[in-house]
């Protein structure tokens, strides 16, 4: 009756998992182990409002602006802050934290998300930044000043957003991207090229199809050396070159598939374990909206969607009750704010083999553009740029209709 659930990871996925366990009827104790020192907070504003903000807010001010509200149902959830999990034995139901303690659990929620990938190149460490946590943001805010030369390495969504925010702040910003126009893996080449032209017109510079070979400088980075042989003068560098799933603490459990995040079934149950589920960015799960290939999805909407299903599954595993058997087909959804553009996507555009620009003019993105993404002639996603939000419902319903 009073099974103990350990939630490892205390960000959006961990929080939603705790809330949804209560909604699913779990009455036993819940402990959330969180490597971070803060109660769960919202990451998207880190590259947007919180980076843009002038003023001299303290770490607590910044946290207060993005902290998630605590629901009544989770008032008794034990948040162990600053207590990372070093390893867990899923068959034995025990975990060890970095402070040397051992804890027992009956059910486990894996919610350890991602950390930024780092470039392995030569040169000074000082002046190199990443942006994933509040501490990263505070460090970056402490060094960035208007007028500085900033290089952002990696023109994915977070890199482009960060670059856009710093440009608005008065920095001189160059994006270095080895594999084509910004965000082209998701947007497709045609729209990506249009976004690049748009951002260039606003003053952002792009170095495309070239990578970072090393950094130069004394104590701190002063120069970015490019693979092509050229170089860029810099005051600071932000590396936004993808992420690595935080799975090391699970590695002792050889029955799990940790090859890219944690493999789960369609109900978020961890494959190779009995009473464990995975939630959020770390979970690699099949989505019948598209096919039966398990994939990780790094969108903000996914922790909330997967937490609900995972909690129902875990509650059924712990209580012997009936798990929902309807296929789980969450609709991937993300947004991004860059200068005067707002992107809103539904579905999985990156799966497409054909892209149609259904509305608007690629040379006037601010007036609104709709791109539709197809695979084998079948809809898989859409990206709206600056379209009226009232239209989102319809765009989302079109993806929902893909459900088998």
């Amino acid at each position: 009756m009073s099974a103990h659930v350990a939630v490892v990871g205390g960000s959006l996925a961990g929080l939603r998992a705790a809330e949804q366990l209560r909604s699913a009827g779990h009455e036993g104790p819940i402990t959330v182990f969180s490597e971070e020192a803060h109660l769960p907070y919202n990451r998207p504003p880190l590259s947007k409002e919180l980076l843009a903000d002038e003023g001299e807010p303290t770490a607590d001010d910044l946290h207060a602006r993005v902290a998630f509200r605590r629901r009544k149902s989770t008032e008794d959830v034990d948040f162990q802050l600053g207590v990372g999990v070093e390893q867990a034995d899923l068959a034995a139901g025990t975990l060890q934290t970095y402070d040397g303690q051992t804890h027992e659990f009956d059910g486990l929620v894996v919610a350890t998300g991602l950390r930024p990938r780092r470039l392995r190149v030569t040169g000074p460490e000082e002046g190199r930044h990443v942006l994933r946590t509040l501490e990263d943001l505070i460090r970056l805010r402490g060094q960035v000043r208007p007028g500085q030369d900033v290089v952002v390495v990696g023109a994915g969504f977070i890199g482009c957003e960060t670059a856009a925010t710093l440009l608005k702040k008065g920095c001189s910003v160059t994006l270095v991207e080895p594999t084509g126009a910004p965000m082209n893996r998701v947007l497709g080449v045609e729209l990506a090229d249009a976004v690049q032209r748009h951002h260039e017109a606003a003053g952002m510079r792009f170095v495309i199809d070239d990578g970072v070979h090393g950094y130069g400088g004394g104590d701190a980075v002063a120069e970015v050396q490019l693979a092509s042989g050229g170089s860029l003068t810099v005051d600071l560098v932000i590396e936004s070159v993808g992420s690595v799933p935080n799975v090391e603490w699970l590695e002792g459990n050889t029955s799990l598939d940790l090859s890219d995040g944690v493999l789960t079934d369609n109900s978020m149950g961890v494959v190779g374990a009995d009473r464990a589920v995975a939630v959020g960015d770390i979970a690699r799960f099949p989505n019948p909206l598209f096919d039966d290939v398990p994939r990780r999805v790094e969108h903000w909407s996914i922790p909330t969607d997967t937490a609900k299903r995972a909690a129902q599954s875990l509650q059924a595993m712990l209580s012997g009750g009936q798990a929902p058997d309807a296929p789980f087909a969450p609709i991937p959804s993300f947004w991004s704010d860059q200068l005067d553009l707002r992107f809103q996507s539904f579905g999985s555009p990156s799966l497409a083999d054909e892209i149609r620009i259904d509305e608007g003019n690629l040379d006037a993105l601010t007036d609104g553009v709709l791109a539709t993404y197809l695979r084998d002639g079948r809809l898989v996603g859409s990206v709206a740029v600056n379209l009226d939000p009232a239209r989102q419902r319809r765009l989302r319903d079109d993806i929902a209709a893909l459900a088998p």
Partner: protein
Amino acid sequence: MHVTVDMNLCQDHGQCAIASPAVFQMNDDGKLEYNGNPDDSLRDEVEEAADVCPVQAILVED
């Protein structure tokens, strides 16, 4: 049940209007309009709307 949206935070993402169309609507100007005192029977969808708001602008109280 009492619902407030912090209109200084709201960026008209419209995710709330997808989760709970009975309570949240995007008007013709693309701005949010909402019912601050929805019926208790709508609690689940209103809480879902609060969860999916990207800027966490929605406060649900008893």
